[in-house]
């Protein structure tokens, strides 16, 4: 809390001396003051004090009764009273309130004190002010602050847009949910939901595994489907049918092999799977020494890989024993067994 007060107060004492001036006005009817402040806090050990703040320039309207002190845009003054050389006021800031008093030593110098209460802690800021030669524009500071606020807001908006776009690029809908604190434009959700229903998008999210922790997002098919309001199986069937018809072998291999024509469910039956016609025509029956046509080679490898990853029908495929069988029987498997082997692989 002490650190918060230290940060808040010296800067917060940039009082809105020029509050009466319209922010857009451009005039030189202000006078420059250099304000030096030093904060003291209740409870600090004797002899210790906070470091003196660097002098700050304050532009006050020439005919204003407001004291030329530095209060920033987070504080407003009220009940300003002047009696002779003394001025008192009340002050309300974002995180606290207090009072101020000052005395003009002469027309170009003053001394004053602001006492603030912030979250139950009291602090005092001692100030001295010195008028500087020259004129200034009392609205300029206000305009600078307004510009800064607008710039900061734009930066925040840009950062948020980048986060939202990142959710689309990575196809992770979690970041678009309101509970993340991001307020993404609905167009990002529309973009993401369109993207995941393309072959490229679908192929990216299809291998994602659901998170082991229920509340943990994983961007898997079900999560994305729920978010976008589509049935992943329906989308898979539509995309796979198109891929099959157009022989889009990349997508067919990555996202369709092993899923049934009829209902899109996983299947171990080769005849039921998407791509089965191509597999039967281009992959099955090929020996390793007589490989599939170049165009189908990668696809057939994907199919072979898929088949190797299925659980075998029996736990152990060990061969039966024949005493004194001969190593490397003649004709190995190329000529006489090749067809059967590949048939086994692809038709298992």
């Amino acid at each position, binding site marked *: 809390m002490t650190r918060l007060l230290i940060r808040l107060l010296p800067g917060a004492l940039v009082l809105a001396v020029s509050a009466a001036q319209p922010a857009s006005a451009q005039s030189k009817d202000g006078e420059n003051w250099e304000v030096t402040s030093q904060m003291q806090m209740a409870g600090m050990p004797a002899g210790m004090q906070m470091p003196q703040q660097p002098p700050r320039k304050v532009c006050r309207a020439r005919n204003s009764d407001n004291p030329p002190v530095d209060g920033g845009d987070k504080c407003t003054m009220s009940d300003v009273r002047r009696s002779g050389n003394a001025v008192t006021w009340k002050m309300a800031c974002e995180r606290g309130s207090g009072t101020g008093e000052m005395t003009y030593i002469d027309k170009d110098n003053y001394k004053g004190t602001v006492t603030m209460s912030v979250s139950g802690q009291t602090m005092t800021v001692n100030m001295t002010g010195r008028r500087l030669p020259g004129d200034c524009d009392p609205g300029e500071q206000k305009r600078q602050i307004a510009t800064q606020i607008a710039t900061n807001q734009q930066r925040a908006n840009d950062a948020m847009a980048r986060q939202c776009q990142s959710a689309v690029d990575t196809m992770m809908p979690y970041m678009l949910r309101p509970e993340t604190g991001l307020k993404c434009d609905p167009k990002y959700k529309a973009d993401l939901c369109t993207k995941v229903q393309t072959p490229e998008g679908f192929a990216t999210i299809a291998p994602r*595994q659901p998170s082991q922790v229920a509340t943990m997002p994983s961007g898997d098919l079900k999560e994305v489907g729920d978010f976008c309001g589509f049935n992943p199986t329906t989308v898979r069937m539509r995309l796979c049918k198109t891929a099959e018809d157009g022989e889009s072998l990349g997508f067919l291999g990555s996202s369709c092999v092993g899923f049934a024509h009829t209902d899109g469910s996983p299947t171990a039956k080769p005849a039921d799977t998407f791509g089965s016609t191509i597999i039967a025509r281009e992959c099955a029956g090929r020996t*390793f020494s007589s490989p599939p046509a170049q165009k189908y080679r990668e696809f057939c490898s994907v199919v072979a890989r898929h088949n190797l990853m299925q*659980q075998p029908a029996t736990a152990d495929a060990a061969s039966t024993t024949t005493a004194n*069988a001969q*190593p*490397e029987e003649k004709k190995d498997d190329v000529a006489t067994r090749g067809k059967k082997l590949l048939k086994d692989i692809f038709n298992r």
Partner: protein
Amino acid sequence: MVRRVLLWLAAIVAALPLHAARADPTVDLFPRAAAGYLVAINGKARWSRAPDSPRAPASLTKVLTALVLLEHDWQPLAEVTVSARAGHSPGARIGLRAGDRVYAAELLEAMLVASANDACLALAEGSAGSAKAFVARMNERAAALGMSASHFEDPCGFDQPKQVTTPNDLLRLTEAALALPVFEQAIAQARGEVHTLGGRKLSYATSNLLLGRLEGARGVKTGQTSNAGRCLIGLAKRGTTQVIVVLLDSPDRWWTAAVLIEEAFRAAQSG
């Protein structure tokens, strides 16, 4: 904010590709690859099935035969006389006849490249005096290598009741053999010739279909018997990555080996 970032990171980790999440060497990622298999990337087992279950090794035995030969007073230009038994070896053979005299180096290549049983037995008998004596050396060497689940009864891999090994033991054996330049050079040959000192020329081709068909394939050894099924130790190198695949009783060893090797290089690339 920190919680949001952690959730985001966790979500990305959860979405990593399947093979990246399955780096446990005990994982059987390819249940249909073989009754027993092992894939090692740069010497480290990555995927396996029954890696310590003993099975008949068939001609994969000849890797140990070669290792014992090469480590035991190897004389490449020693003249080996083919015995009647060797000359009548069944199975894969290059056509040696009893009484043929051949240089040991040529027999070694024929044994490793074409899995020639006649060359194998001639070498074993020529080196130790008898197949039995040679097998004793093989078991000694296997024990020294730590192939604790292996036992050999035939120098060339013919099925014998107690002739067994495991994928893990074969990986160990292969790595030891690959340390010998003569072995590494021989297994990579696609074809060769044996010239008997009597003037006959016997040509042979490799039994390894991966050679010349799969990028980076460097051979090693094939094997097949009724007991063992189709077996293979496959080696492939691409850049600094070396993949060794051991398959014991694999229904389709060539496609399987090709898929496993490609998958292993992919896994190595993705870390």
